[in-house]
């Protein structure tokens, strides 16, 4: 546990010691601020649909564009950087298992991802000052962000174990996330009910819709958690295999 925390802490801090973190953070906050402004402006026009403003923050197209592009960039440095500096040798020859290394690094990246989202809680307070807010959907939305972030980052972590090159790692992660994300969109194309059900189960957009309305469906939670576990397991296997052929 101490060792896990040591890896997590170093990883999380490493983000803030590189300019990349601030670029992502700034871009993310500017974009989300604009979207939030647009949502509130839209909701204030006469004839706008009644309801809460905040769910739109998690169901708009930019939300997905952001996650699909930025998560690979967050995860790309995890292992390639260690390989480049040779510190991977130090890490893997210290008395720490490969699974612990993968988990620690993944948790550090997830920590950074959640740090990106943390400032958006300000929006909740801004809205609360003006209008009554149902906090249930807010909580379930942020839970969904964490689950989705963990899922996508586990894919990114796996991709980063596959190569020494950060750019290649990011492209690989993006290449894996696109089918994961678009699988759900196939739901509307299938005519076979079983197939529709399968793709429906994978429809991330729909899941997010439900979470943002305060519905925490355990099937979705199970999907995210088990998929995250699967990709972290793959990352561990890949890391152990890479040891064989440095």
């Amino acid at each position, binding site marked *: 546990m*101490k*060792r896990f*925390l*040591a*890896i997590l*802490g*170093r990883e999380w801090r*490493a983000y803030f*010691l*590189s300019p990349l973190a601030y670029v992502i953070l700034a871009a993310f906050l500017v974009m989300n601020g604009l979207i939030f402004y647009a949502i509130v402006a839209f909701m204030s026009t006469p004839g706008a649909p009644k309801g809460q403003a905040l769910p739109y923050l998690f169901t708009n197209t930019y939300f997905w564009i952001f996650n699909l592009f930025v998560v690979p960039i967050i995860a790309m440095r995890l292992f390639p950087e260690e390989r480049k*500096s*040779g*510190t*991977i*040798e*130090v*890490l*893997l*020859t*210290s*008395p*720490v*298992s490969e699974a612990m290394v993968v988990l620690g690094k993944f948790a550090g990246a997830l920590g950074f991802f959640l740090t990106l989202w943390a400032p958006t809680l300000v929006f909740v307070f801004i809205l609360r000052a003006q209008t009554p807010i149902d906090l249930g959907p807010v909580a379930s939305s942020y839970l969904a962000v964490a689950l989705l972030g963990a899922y996508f980052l586990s894919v990114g972590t796996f991709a980063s174990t596959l190569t020494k090159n950060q750019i290649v790692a990011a492209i690989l992660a993006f290449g894996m996330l696109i089918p994961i994300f678009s699988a759900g969109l196939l739901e509307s194309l299938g005519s076979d009910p079983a197939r529709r059900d399968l793709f429906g189960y994978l429809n991330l957009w729909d899941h997010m819709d439900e979470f943002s309305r305060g519905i925490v469906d355990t099937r979705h939670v199970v999907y995210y958690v088990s998929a995250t576990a699967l990709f972290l397991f793959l990352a561990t296997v890949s890391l152990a295999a890479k*040891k*064989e*052929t*440095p």
Partner: protein
Amino acid sequence: MIEVQNLTKSYPTQTAVADVSFSVKEGEIVGFLGPNGAGKTTTMRVLTGFLPPTSGTARIAGHDVRTHSKEARACLGYLPESAALYPEMRVREFLAYRARLEGISGADVRRRVDEAIGHCLLEEVADRKIDNLSKGYRQRAALAGALVHQPPVLILDEPTVGLDPAQIVKIREMIRALGRERAVLLSTHILPEVDAVCDRVLIIDRGRIVAEGTPQDLRTRLAGKPVVRAAFKGIVSVAERLAAIPGVLSVAIEEDPDETRARVECEASSDPREAIFQAAVEGGFVLRELAFDVASLEDVFVRLTHHEEAPVEAAVPPAAPEEARPS
């Protein structure tokens, strides 16, 4: 503390380390000497658990690196070839991270970090970013990282590579001090290093250990016949006179414009220097120089790893595949 038996590491296309056996005791510094690509790094990576061996066993402080990898790794401090550091971290942060990674916690971390900083003379730069340090300080920071948890076994892969002479002397002093209560295995392709630091030498070539012993021992055992160098003023014909001296095996003459140089190979444990002086006096030659040619470890090394000539001992099969070291 380090025991290696019949260790072999092969890749699909080549054998990097072939049937290597050796041991390093506590309080001993063993130099692992060989040309680039001889299998030094591969052997060390197997010892540190970074690479699994193909066959054979390696033990660190009694723990098999394959079956009890974690225990073995816990007894080990490893300095990889590339001085693996996180450039964005400060020295103190880096050492604290290494200590925590080794399972040290709480107040101990600070104490061990301070000790390592003291040991490696890093006080001046302890709060500076590693990125901004000179190569010598970086190497020392990496060394401090390898010993922050005070392991009984240290494995150092080319600890002085790329340093300037003053820094090399410093690092060597540190290693010598460390070796007093630890088992240290260090690799190098720099010969004076072995002479300066090591109690014992293993010469490895093409994945095999071709010689083993103290630096002194290797010199006397493997350097071949003693050689006396003599120089005479002017161009003179001394060859026959020198060859006639008892104990002299061969004489090689080299003529400079104003000097005649003789390289006199003689039987082991014979000393023809006085006889050469006498011969010079009798022949009326002016002797300018007369001394034993001290065989250097370099000679031994070249002899053992130079493949055009047959090696003196422990012949290397000529078909042994060349290792292209994995990076």
